[in-house]
Each structure stands twice: as C-alpha cells, then as structure tokens.
C-alpha cells in the first residue's frame, strides 16, 4: 500500500499510451469514419437529386406527349376538312360539267330537230310539188308555172 516510484513509472506508460492513441489510433480512424459519412451523405444527396430530375423529366415527357396528341388531332381535323373541301369542289365541278354537257346536248338536239324539220319541210314541199305536178301535169306546164312553184316552195 506504499506510494513509491511505481507511480511515476506508471505515469510515464500512461503518457506513452496517450501519445500513441492521439497520434496513431484516433486521427486515422476518425478520418476513415468521416470520409465514409461524407460518401454516404453524397450518395444520399445524389439519390435525392436523381429522384428530383426523374420527376422533372416525367413531367416534361407528359407535356410533350400532350402537345403531340394535340398536334396530331389538329392534323387529322385539318385533313378531314381538306378532304371534305376536295369532295365539295369535285361535286361542284362535276355539276358544272354536267350542266355544260346538258346544255351542249340540248343545243345539238335542237339543231338536230331544226335540221329534221327543215328536211321534212323540204320533203313535204317536194311531195306537195310532186303531187301538184301529178295533178297539174295534165294542166300546167312546169316551166310556165315555175315561178309560182318556187314561191310556194319557199313559203313552206
């Protein structure tokens, strides 16, 4: 139970152990722990950032999709409009053409009728003259009454 020199010798070993711990044990381990903490914190931050970016790009993708849907439906509407326009145009053109053809046909028909009437009139006149000739052969000289006959023929 005596206090003796052991106290100082023990204090020296204590000092050596403190020095060893403060120099070789604590700082490297602390550095390793702090580096790992930083790595983990960085990883978490990167994950958070990635999540945020994913949200943004999902939003952008939805926007683009909506825009393109809008565009395509616009295009379809335009095309439909254009198609009906073309059909209407074609119908109008066809009508005009039909009318034109109808008018031409009518004119030709009239001309044809006129021509037929003319021919008929000629034939009737000739028939009348032939009839009259047969009647008049006996009484009228064709030459003497030619002027009368021509006058009649022109009146028919």
């Amino acid at each position, binding site marked *: 139970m005596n206090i*003796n*020199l052991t*106290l100082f010798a023990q204090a020296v070993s*204590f000092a050596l152990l403190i020095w*060893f*711990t*403060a120099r070789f*044990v604590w700082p490297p381990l*602390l550095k390793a*722990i702090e580096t790992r903490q930083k790595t983990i914190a960085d990883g978490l931050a990167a994950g958070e950032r990635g999540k945020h970016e994913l949200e943004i790009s999902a939003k952008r993708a939805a926007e683009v999709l909506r825009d393109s849907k809008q565009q395509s439906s616009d295009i379809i509407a335009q095309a439909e409009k254009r198609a009906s326009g073309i059909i209407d145009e074609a119908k109008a053109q066809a009508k005009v053409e039909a009318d034109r053809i109808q008018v031409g046909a009518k004119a030709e028909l009239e001309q044809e009728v006129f021509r037929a009437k003319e021919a008929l009139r000629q034939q009737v006149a000739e028939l009348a003259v032939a009839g009259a000739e047969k009647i008049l052969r006996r009484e009228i000289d064709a030459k003497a009454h030619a002027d009368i006959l021509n006058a009649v023929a022109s009146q028919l």
Partner: protein
Amino acid sequence: MAAEQLTPSEYIGHHLTFNTHSVGNGGFWVLNMDTLVTSLLLGVIVFGFLGWIVHGATSGVPNKRQAFVELLVDFVDGQVKSIFHGDRHAFLAPLALTVFVWVFFMNAMDFLPVDIMAWFYHHILGQEHWRSVPTADINATFALALSVWLLMIFFNIKVKGLGGWIHELFCAPFGSNPLIWPANFAFNMIEYISKPLSHSLRLFGNMYAGEIIFLLLGMWAATGITGTIAGALLGWGWGIFHILIVILQAFIFMMLTVVYIAMAHESH
C-alpha cells in the same frame, strides 16, 4: 493450493504482496514490477491491436473488427462530445479512449482466478509474488489520476493564462470581493486536492475490494466441501457482478477525466 500450508492471514498477505524491485535506498525507490509489467503488457497488446486495426482501416465498408473499434470510438466520442465543446479530436477524446480502454483491461485482470494465476506465476514464471490487477495498486490509480490532474492544471493555464488561472483561484466561485478571496482560495484548494484523491481512490477501492472478496471466497473454498460449494457459487455470483464493476469503474474513470479537463477549459 497455497492456502493448504498457510494461515488465512498469511494466505491473504501472500496474495497482496507486490513483486518489488528496489532501485535505490529507502522505501520510495521501489518499483512494483507486477503492476508495471502487467499494465504495460496490457497497454502494448490492446493499443497495438487498436493501432493494427486502424492501420488497415478503410473508409469504405468496414470489416467486423473495424466496425467494433468504430463502435468503441463512437461511444467514447459521444460521451466526450456531450461534455466538452471545444476541439475534442485534438486531445481530449483520444485521452478518454486511452483511459477507458486501458483501465478496462487492467480491471479485467480481476476476472482471472486468483489461485490459478498464483500457481501460474509461481510455477511457470518463477515469481513468488505477483498481483494480477494493476488498478488494485494505489500507485497505478494515483499515476493515472495525478496525470489527469496535471493535465487539468496545464489546460487551465493554457486556456486562461497563468494570470487568469490565479485570478480564478481567488475570485471563483463566490465572487471577486477581496474579503472573500481566502474563502475562494480555500474552496479551490479543497477541490484541487479532493479531485485526484476521489478519482484514484474510487477505482482503487473498488478493484482492491473485489480482489479481497475473491481471496476470501478462495479461502472459504479451502475449508471443506461445504465451503468449496459455497465459495464456488458465491465466487460465480461475485464474478458476474464484477463484470459490471469492471466496466462501470472504467467508464466512471473516463467520465471524470473528461469532466475534469472539460472544466479546466471553462472560465468562470
């Protein structure tokens, strides 16, 4: 067993005799070789182990050895952090780790069965007297407590300056009126004397008492079959309880070290 040839007081006295080595004239110039060699051996082994693990430490995924040491360091760091608000990594936290680990292992020598170890020291190492537990030697606990005490004074002077420290000796805790300087000084002196005393004697008393109880139980065990059974059972119970004491005393010693040195950093 040694008790068979010895009277009880001789048996206990035999176990409590230091392995001394005289280096000069007089009772002071004596080294307790058992205390010194055991503590230094423990220090070299344990801190060498820590140094070895830390040398291979990685900041990536740690292996189990490193994780264990990191738990220990984190525990000590957390305790220091809750008490001390300066730059603890420079000195105080490593000091606390040193104190905790070293005191713990010196205390843990008490787990070794006294008589088997006595036989081992006697017959294998050829030492008549050898006490296993360095912290049951008052020289060892005073060495630690006085080192801490000197560090406390060193940090007092370093933080406040010599003048500031002396000013505080006379003007704290009651005030700076010259009439109460004596009271302040007396108060501070009592504090400065009681700190190392309580610091060292608490650890010494606990470990010494633990050792004595193991010795008494060992003595009882030598008295016959009843004594052997009772001694074994009580020794078992005391051993389990002692695990708590060993850890608790190491922890208390570390906490007081941290508190004393943290207090030295605070100005009043």
